[in-house]
């Protein structure tokens, strides 16, 4: 059980999202960075769909009301527990009264805090994710505030006394200045001017300050849409890159509307959405066109990576039990 001492009004309880209500107009919500969220859960032996706290703004401070395990993953934010520095990916024990502090983010844009069994909030419509617009799910359908208390869904402390960290996939390729996003051409790709298509796939786009759970507005080469007439509203999914009248792209994300009508140049593949979630205003993105086969392979590769982590963590626990 931990108490929030201080937190900017942007942190929400999320799981992998609310499936099955798209046709009622309800978006998925859910974590922006499913990879860090899943790793934080797995470090505690939780289901990957257990609820974590998504923290997009720091500093934040929590106090453990009783001793317990916790895990952190995502952005590097100078976290400390009882004054001792923690790495950006961490699972360990805290003593009663310990203060967990997250400082300024130096790399990445979101940290995830996990508790044993997940954060204990009621499931609504099959998920514990916060639906900010509709005001339900998560903790009372809202962002966290000082004084809130987060309970662990499980009393068990599955961790050995050894602290754990993990090697995560790199946000950028070694030596790269930009974050690469793999994407499929989308419905109106062919209706953009050839030079605009070329620019989209070859020049970098900068993440603007207008970037949040609904979407990221990007700044870069203006994209000229050459078809005329309004599009009829249609379903939109996280990762879709829309280009409104101004010619600057927007990537729709976890809390986007479920329908829209702007021209769509591309769709970022699901296994790369976590990279957007960890991109900060000012970071530069580069889109790389992939085929469906490459998108399918990327999805499989990420699932296999997560399964491999689960196996490795089980191996670690088995070794630890042998030594105790």
């Amino acid at each position, binding site marked *: 059980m931990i108490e929030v001492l201080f937190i900017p009004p942007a942190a929400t309880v999320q799981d992998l999202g609310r*499936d*099955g*209500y*798209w*046709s*009622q*107009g*309800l*978006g998925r919500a859910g974590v922006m960075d499913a990879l860090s969220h899943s790793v934080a859960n797995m470090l505690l032996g939780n289901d990957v769909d257990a609820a974590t706290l998504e923290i997009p703004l720091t500093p934040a401070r929590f106090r453990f009301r009783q001793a317990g395990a916790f895990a952190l993953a995502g952005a590097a934010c100078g976290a400390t527990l009882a004054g001792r520095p923690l790495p950006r990916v961490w699972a360990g024990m805290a003593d009663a009264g310990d203060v967990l502090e997250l400082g300024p983010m130096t790399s990445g844009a979101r940290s995830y805090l996990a508790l044993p069994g997940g954060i204990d909030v009621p499931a*609504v*419509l099959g998920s514990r994710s916060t*639906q900010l*617009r*509709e*005001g*339900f*799910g998560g903790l009372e359908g809202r962002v966290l505030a000082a004084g809130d208390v987060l309970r662990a869904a499980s009393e068990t402390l599955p961790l050995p006394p050894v602290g754990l960290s993990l090697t995560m996939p790199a946000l950028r390729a070694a030596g790269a200045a930009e974050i690469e996003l793999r994407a*499929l*051409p*989308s*419905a109106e790709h062919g209706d953009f001017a050839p030079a605009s298509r070329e620019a989209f796939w070859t020049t970098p786009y900068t993440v603007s300050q207008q970037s949040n759970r609904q979407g990221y507005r990007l700044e870069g080469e203006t994209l000229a849409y050459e078809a005329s007439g*309004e599009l*009829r*509203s*249609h*379903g*939109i*999914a*996280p*990762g*879709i890159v829309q280009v409104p009248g101004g010619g600057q792209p927007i990537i729709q994300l976890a809390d986007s*509307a*479920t*329908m*829209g009508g702007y021209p*769509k140049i591309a*769709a970022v*593949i*699901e*296994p790369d959405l976590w990279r957007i979630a960890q991109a900060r205003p000012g970071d530069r993105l580069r889109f790389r066109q992939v085929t*469906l*086969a490459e*998108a*399918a392979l*990327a*999805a499989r590769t990420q699932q296999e990576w997560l399964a491999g982590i689960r196996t490795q963590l089980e191996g670690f626990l088995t070794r630890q039990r042998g030594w105790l």
Partner: protein
Amino acid sequence: MPDAKLSMIGSRAVLFQPSCPFDLANQQRIWAIADEAATWKGVREAVPGMTNVTLLLDHVPTGLDRIERDLAALWESGIRKQVEGRLLAIDMAYDGPHLAEVAGMTGLPVDQVVRLHAAPEYTVYAVGSHAGYCYLGGLDPRLETPRRKVPLPRLPGGSLSLAGLQTGVSASAGPSGWNTIGSTDLSFFDPERTPAALLRPGDRIRFNPVEVKA
């Protein structure tokens, strides 16, 4: 190949857009496709848009040929879903901040704007954008107005607004670039209710003016 477009709008999301006029008969074909496709193996959800349908798949498809053929065959079959749909009368206060402006833009007196807006039986074509929001067909063309140049950052839930040839009632607070002419207390989405969304495609709405304040 029939005149329809299939495209990826996500690595597991496919958008099917047949080329057709925007009318109720074609929308009924879309509802039929969505119902049918939702039962296909590998399809998690099927969502009707405005004369288009989006499928959310379980996995990234390895190719689109099969799904394209199946969707095109369904469309070509011309099968329509003629929903009985319920008719809902909604008490509406025509008291929105832009009612007088809409009267000005359309060149009609306020009373006439309200009368024209409350006259038709609207059909829910699609549900989406935000939870419980309905895309309605049936607005009188005399009420066509442009979108607002400066959107309102936070319009309360239950706001009746219109723009272009579309009209609808917001189900929760959010930004809006439409012209707002009324308000209601009705809840269009309630997670405690089954189904949570009040209205489904094919349902019909009639607005009952309880107050006019411009």
